[in-house]
């Protein structure tokens, strides 16, 4: 049996595999395979792109012999497979479809390569083909050691925001991954919003993409890691920012108000879902200008990290329920002086503008609007996560909503904009609202 790691390296490589099949009358057939995917130690999937002789043969005789070459050592392997079924939707299919688009683009086969299905095979036997080999180059990063070092730090994070920082710092320091971001799922709106990033000119915190869009959106929808070694425009994100867009009746036109921070010309990308209790909490996304940057072992490590981050996030959410109430009896702080700033809130999408500047929308926008209202009418500056969760004005989609992530988003967005309103953490599940100048609140379409 060949080591799984070697088999995965072969399937990841740019050297196409060769498939030998046999017709019922004994006539052999040899064909190239564009893409293979390791599924588990007993199964792999090969791309089905054309109804060709290979496919006709395996419907009649399911035995297949697959020839593979290790991309670094030139070691040849032969894998004996039995065809089981073809999948035309779902996680395996979507993951292979995204990869095939990259392979097609890389090999000048865009428009020729199209995934009709993922052929699932049972692995019967694998053999090492005798022959000369080259020594395997040592990996630049030992993913298992990097994972261990990175994982050790995560549980020491006191809250969601520092957890995300620890994650992204760890990827940079231990995995040498320079471009990374975390998006969280807004299940009610079927969108993902950026809460933290590293390695981009602008952080993109608050930028959004629909579930199902690009590698991140597909990873979230299918709950499967997607790793692309040759990135193609088919799965890229629009980076254009709509400067000075008409802001009245905004609808979803604010989608592009905060540009997605991705690389303009990525070579490799890897999106890993952060598991939640039911749907994923979000997606960890890394990319690089270099093609073939992320290995299967990197994917393993990031899946392990994302699983730990998901668990810790859920722990923070559970702890919120135990968080302290806002302390009453704190003296009302003196109102700030200076000319008032107009703050507008549009109920249609809960967007909030500070002066003429768009700040935030959605649940995070509602949270801010609720805080500002209480500050204005009651003079309050101290709040707790727990009371926000219960406040009907915040209109959380449901009790399990990731309020913590929305507060991270709001905090970062206010800090980045150097707004006259800031949030400051004062304890577990508690924070203080800092208002630097008088505000004039205007609910623009409260009746909507």
């Amino acid at each position, binding site marked *: 049996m060949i080591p799984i790691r070697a088999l995965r390296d072969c399937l990841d490589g740019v050297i196409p595999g060769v498939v*030998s099949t046999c017709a019922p009358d004994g006539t052999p057939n040899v064909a190239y395979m564009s893409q293979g995917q390791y599924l588990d130690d007993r199964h792999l999937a090969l791309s089905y792109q054309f109804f060709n002789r290979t496919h006709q043969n395996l419907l009649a005789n399911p035995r297949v012999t697959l020839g593979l070459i290790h991309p670094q050592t030139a070691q040849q392997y032969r894998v004996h497979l039995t065809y089981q079924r073809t999948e035309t939707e779902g996680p395996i299919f979507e993951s292979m479809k995204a990869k095939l688009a990259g392979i097609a683009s890389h090999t000048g086969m865009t428009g020729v390569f199209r995934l009709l299905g993922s052929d699932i095979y049972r692995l019967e036997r694998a053999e090492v083909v005798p022959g000369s080999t080259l020594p395997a180059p040592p990996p630049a990063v030992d993913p298992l050691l990097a994972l261990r070092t990175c994982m050790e730090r995560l549980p020491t994070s006191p809250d969601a925001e520092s957890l995300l920082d620890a994650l992204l710092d760890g990827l940079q320091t231990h995995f040498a991954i320079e471009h990374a971001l975390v998006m969280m799922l807004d299940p009610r709106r079927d969108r993902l919003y950026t809460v933290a990033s590293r390695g981009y000119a602008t952080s993109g915190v608050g930028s959004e993409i629909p579930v199902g869009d690009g590698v991140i959106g597909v990873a979230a929808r299918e709950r499967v890691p997607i790793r692309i070694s040759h990135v193609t425009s088919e799965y890229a994100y629009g980076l254009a920012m709509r400067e000075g867009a008409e802001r009245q009746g905004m609808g979803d036109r604010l989608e592009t108000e905060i540009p997605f921070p991705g690389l303009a010309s990525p070579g490799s990308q890897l999106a890993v879902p952060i598991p939640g209790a039911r749907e994923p909490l979000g997606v960890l996304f890394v990319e690089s200008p270099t093609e073939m940057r992320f290995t299967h072992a990197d994917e393993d490590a990031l899946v392990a990290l994302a699983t730990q981050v998901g668990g810790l996030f859920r722990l923070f959410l559970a702890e919120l329920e135990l968080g302290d109430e806002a302390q009453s009896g704190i003296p009302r702080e003196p109102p700030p002086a200076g000319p008032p700033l107009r703050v507008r809130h549009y109920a249609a999408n809960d967007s909030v503008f500070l002066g003429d500047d768009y700040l935030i929308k959605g649940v995070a926008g509602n949270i801010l609007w609720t805080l500002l209202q209480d500050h204005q009418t009651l003079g309050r500056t101290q709040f707790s996560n727990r009371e926000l969760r219960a406040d009907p004005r915040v209109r959380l989609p449901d009790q399990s909503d990731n309020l913590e992530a929305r507060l991270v988003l709001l905090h970062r967005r206010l800090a980045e904009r150097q707004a006259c309103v800031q949030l400051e953490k004062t304890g577990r599940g508690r924070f203080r609202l800092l208002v630097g100048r008088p505000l004039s609140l205007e609910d623009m379409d409260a009746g909507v």
Partner: protein
Amino acid sequence: MPALPTLQLDPDLARFVTGGVSINAGSASAAGVPSLCRAFGCRVEPGTDRITLFFSPPQAADLIRDATASGALAVVFSEPPTHRTVQIKGQNARLIPLAEGDLACVTAYRTAFAQSLVFLGFTEAMVRTLLDCPDEALVALTFTPSAFFNSTPGAQAGTALIPALAPPLAPGAP
């Protein structure tokens, strides 16, 4: 499998299959289990209907066993930079002693295939390692072609290159 008419390669096809192309041959056991092996070059005897491929015996044990038992062979020739791919189906496969010039043919093949792949960013050491086999160990497997197919990826893949002489598409087309 049914007996098929044999064919000769036209000069363009002969040039293609003896150039710096990737060569993979397949056969199958009587039980229908496919075998597969990479070849280290191809010789086309001018004026004959025979094609000869060179293999490393330890690598090709299953293929040689199956091909010499059934006589059936399928060979894919593919040019990596252009993706041009041709599959030749054949019969009467048998081992023959290496002829004069065969070692030179394998040596020339290694150089041509390495050039083709170095152009695509592979190292020459990688290609030469892949094609490494002691001269004295090389074996020659010869067969008579019965059908040529265009296997270049795309809508035309699987079409017979010489429709008038080729057998009907089923069974045995790529």
